[in-house]
């Protein structure tokens, strides 16, 4: 609720709840098979140099909620957004049919390099910041989850204006149905034969990416297909930094890259997270058995923002996007054909 789009072999629904958590994707099916039950980026932790301020923007405790504006709203802090640009509903924006809508839905046909894709996005004000939640669903099965940064720098004190944006995504992947999940961690241990391994994560836990072993994770359905393989979706990390406090004695706000937790109806939505992610580690991922259960993963997409306060960011931060990818692995049984508008159309 409230909208659904069918394009690029995807069927995807969206909404912006009144809770302040921003754009929520739900019931995402690829070629008629369920991939995502629900996904969103309900909050972002923003610690500044000097440890003050530290914001939690978005849902819940200590969070200034995300407030949607129209897609046509300027890249500006909240106080510069004129009254006419604030959204009145979370349906698809259209200048004639629904000028008050908050959500842009774009159906983009394939070209020489990219397949058909459907893009769903919304601009969300939070005091001086303007965030963008954008989801891209490709006809090859890939999903790009993106967080955009815009709006005004919070302050212009040279020594303390740097900060880190830690976007927390909650991903309820129901691969071909809810339950019977297994989360695995990939490790490239070397270049010897069979050095690439998938390691089972059997219990709720916090994970940290290791660039040396090309960490990625996947959620699979344990029921094999007729060919013996398991449908799965990989999560390919996209952060430009590690969790804080690991390599230094600095204060810690964001301690992990991924958390594996059990699905709990109407609970563990991130509202009770404060200005650190301790709740994810100590309360949500508290060691319950996860192998074979209905599993949710939280992923932190992290970016250090070193302001260009006397250069490109004197007025606002020009839109900048961070992203991570969800890629199918053995979700289908062969290469999907005719994705690109080449001559002849390919793959052949």
């Amino acid at each position, binding site marked *: 609720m409230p909208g659904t789009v069918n394009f690029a072999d995807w069927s995807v629904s969206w909404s912006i709840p009144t809770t302040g958590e921003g754009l929520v994707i739900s019931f995402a099916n690829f070629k008629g098979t369920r991939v995502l039950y629900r996904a969103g980026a309900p909050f972002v932790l923003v610690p500044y140099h000097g440890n003050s301020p530290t914001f939690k923007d978005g849902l819940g405790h200590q969070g200034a909620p995300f407030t949607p504006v129209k897609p046509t709203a300027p890249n500006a802090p909240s106080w510069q957004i004129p*009254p006419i640009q604030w959204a009145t509903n979370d349906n698809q924006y259209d200048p004639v049919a629904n000028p008050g809508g908050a959500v842009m*839905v774009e159906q983009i046909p394939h070209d020489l390099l990219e397949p058909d894709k459907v893009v769903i996005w919304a601009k969300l004000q939070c005091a001086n910041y303007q965030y963008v939640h954008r989801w891209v669903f490709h006809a090859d099965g890939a999903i790009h989850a993106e967080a955009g940064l815009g709006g005004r720098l919070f302050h212009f004190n040279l020594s303390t204006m740097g900060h880190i944006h830690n976007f927390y995504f909650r991903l309820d992947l129901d691969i071909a149905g809810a339950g019977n999940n297994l989360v695995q961690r990939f490790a490239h241990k070397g270049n010897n034969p069979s050095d690439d391994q998938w390691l089972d994560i059997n219990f709720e836990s916090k994970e940290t990416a290791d660039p040396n072993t090309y960490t990625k994770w996947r959620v699979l359905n344990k029921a094999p297909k007729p060919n013996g393989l398991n449908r799965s979706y990989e999560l390919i990390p996209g952060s430009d930094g590690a969790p804080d406090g690991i390599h230094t004695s600095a204060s810690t706000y964001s301690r992990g890259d991924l958390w594996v937790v059990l699905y709990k109806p109407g609970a563990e939505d991130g509202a009770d997270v404060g200005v650190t992610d301790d709740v994810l580690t100590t309360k949500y991922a508290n060691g319950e058995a996860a192998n074979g259960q209905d599993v949710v993963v939280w992923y932190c997409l992290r970016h250090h923002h070193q302001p260009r306060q006397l250069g490109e960011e004197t007025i606002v931060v020009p839109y900048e996007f961070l992203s991570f990818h969800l890629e199918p692995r053995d979700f289908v049984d062969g290469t999907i054909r005719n994705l690109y508008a080449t001559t002849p159309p390919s793959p052949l």
Partner: protein
Amino acid sequence: MSQARLITESEESRLTELEQGQPESAEALQALIEEIKTRTVRAALDDPQVAERLEGKRSRVVGTDLREEKPRDGERIETRLAEVGIYDYDDNVLIVPIIDLRNGVVAAIEERRGYHPSLAAEEIEEAKNIALAHREFQSLTEYSELEVVAFPARAAVTESHPGFGHRCVTLYFWTGGEQPERVSQAVVDLSTQEVVPGDAEGEPFVEPQGLA
């Protein structure tokens, strides 16, 4: 509590149809959603347990979300739920009756402290009136057209602010017309029903150092 369905089978079919017909269907979809929400709110407020919880409290319905829940054991389709957000200004907590729409019952009542949902129209109107009655903002009433933009204030989540933990509203006042201008701002604490300092909002009128 009513045991009657709060959403009919035909409405469910209609919702599905309208969800897929956007953007042309957006207006009709919104109207149907509002209709369902209105009767759901009424059912929630009529529930004896909800009424008992709210008795003697200054409270207001601030929003309603419709959502689905995964099928439980033995069920084949999602449960359709509505969450009615009722803010209790005395205790500063969001009371959330969760309604099973198909069965017409309150499935649970949750208390969610620290949630700051979108502002209801009535809240914006109250905040505006509180601000305009304050000596600092009384001159704004001289504008023939005055528009207000409002959203939950960062003051409510700033520990050092007097409005911390309360229902606080940031108001931006704009002139009307084709080229509106922002003329003032205020932060109102709806829990205490007074204007409070706005210094938690990110120094909105301070220009960058070193710039013209």
